[in-house]
């Protein structure tokens, strides 16, 4: 599961806004996939979270990560609606 964040400067330019919207919608799609996958895991599976910018994966709690991912998705959706 990748956690990446990208910030775009919101300018008045409509062109940049549409680009931002597209980026957001992409992220939302990815997040949706993550949530679905997590929810569809068997109980004995381990979930690992990748440390940013490196190749290390730390063991994480499955339920906890699921709830975190869901929160992220909601947040992204809200942002898209706000624009």
């Amino acid at each position, binding site marked *: 599961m990748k956690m990446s964040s990208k910030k775009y400067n919101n300018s008045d330019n409509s062109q940049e806004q549409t680009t931002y919207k597209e980026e957001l919608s992409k992220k939302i799609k990815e997040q949706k996939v993550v949530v679905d996958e997590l929810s569809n895991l068997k109980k004995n599976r381990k979930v690992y979270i990748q*440390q940013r910018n490196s190749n290390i994966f730390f*063991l994480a709690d499955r339920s906890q990560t699921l709830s975190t991912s869901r929160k992220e998705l909601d947040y992204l959706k809200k942002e898209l609606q706000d624009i």
Partner: protein
Amino acid sequence: MAGGGGKANMKPLGGVHRLREEHEKVVKDCDSRIQHWTKVSGDYDALSDRLKTLPDRLSYDIMVPFGPLAFTPGKLVRTNEVTVLLGDNWFAKCSAKQAQAVVDHRMKHVKKELDDLAQTRKNFEARVGLAKDLETMSANKGQFVDIREEVTSSTASKGKQRIAHKPNSKPKLDVVVDLNEEEEEKEGGTGAMTEEELWRRLDELERLEELQDEQDRLSDTADTNGNDSSSSSSEEEKEAACAPPVNGLSLKPGWSPAPHSDPPLHDRKAEDDEEEEGSRLPTIFFSHTVEPKKVRINTGKNTTLKFSERKEQKEHSKRKKKNGHSNGHAHHELHKITSPADVYRLFVDVRNGEPVPRKSILKSRSRENSVCSDTSESSAADFEERRVTGRSFSHDEATHSDTSDGVTEEDSPTAVPLLSRFEAFSGTVIEKDPMPTGVPHLTILPPALPTIPERKQEEVASDFTPPPAPEASKRLSKFKAARLQQK
């Protein structure tokens, strides 16, 4: 007009367009950099969080990277020991907290970079906007109108024919010229003009400060400058402010009226040259009179006396008034020293009505009287020369040790006609002679000095030129030879 205007605008159109493009390029570059730095900042944030929680557990279950493509389950042990990359392949083993401190420090730098980039981006966005406006303005003249004012010669020539009211006062032609030129060159280079004016004004103010002490010499010519009329109000104010100091300045150096009687339609450069040239004449005069130096002098009695030049300046100002300004000009010319021969030309004693070349310029007068400093101007001039150029005449200093100590001699009363000649160097230190004239100074002078018995001889003998020659040739060979040659 429309065709010409259109033609004129074609050039800036291309230029403005390119300007806008360049600005936009910069903005894009800033954007990409900001993106990069935000990513870095995010990474460091995550790292900081991880470091905070890392020492919480003794070990973590992780997926260890196994080669470039595979992972294997494993444990992360020694959670408190972190190897930090310091750059250039140098590493430091730190605890988690220390590593966190390093990360915080790096975060600071990243934030600073981000701020700078944001600022730059903002600036260039503004410039892009400006360029866009400029483009639209030059493209279609409908919305924006160019306002131009033609300058006629009548308005520019208002203050042209002003002459100085006093022959030696410096009229404020400079300022008037500035005005004219400012009007004429309105479209181009006004920024540079004002700068030059400012520098001129600074110089004037400096000179004014120096001359504040000699206000008794200033005549009230300030009223003459009040009548100047100018078209621009700002210039008027400046003019009025400049006028008294300029005039105050003018009296002292004794500007000759000739260069200033010309119509002030000079270029600024010509005016500056004149100014510089004019200042070249009295520079020697100035530098010596104005410097308020204090000099300590060892008299024969081993006493050190302090003296300031103010007294001398006042004396000289009075004398100059008596002598008139013409003398002053003559003096300036005479006091131009370009070769050692000039020195000997200048430093002459008047004995029995004839100018006698002095053997040593470090000594002002004959030594028959006393070693104490004198109150004359010629000796003052000598002392000034000594002070200024004493180093070059090393042989004199070697021979006359008392002069190296800085003892000046008393002036003989017969040297009155020479006083006026050395006004330029009036800034030297002159002390009142405490000792009586007839006191011999054998105690101070080393017996090796040849000049003392020589001069005593001179007083007796009517013809004094031959005796100094052979005697002096021993000691003052170089300069003496030059002097004799000149003769």
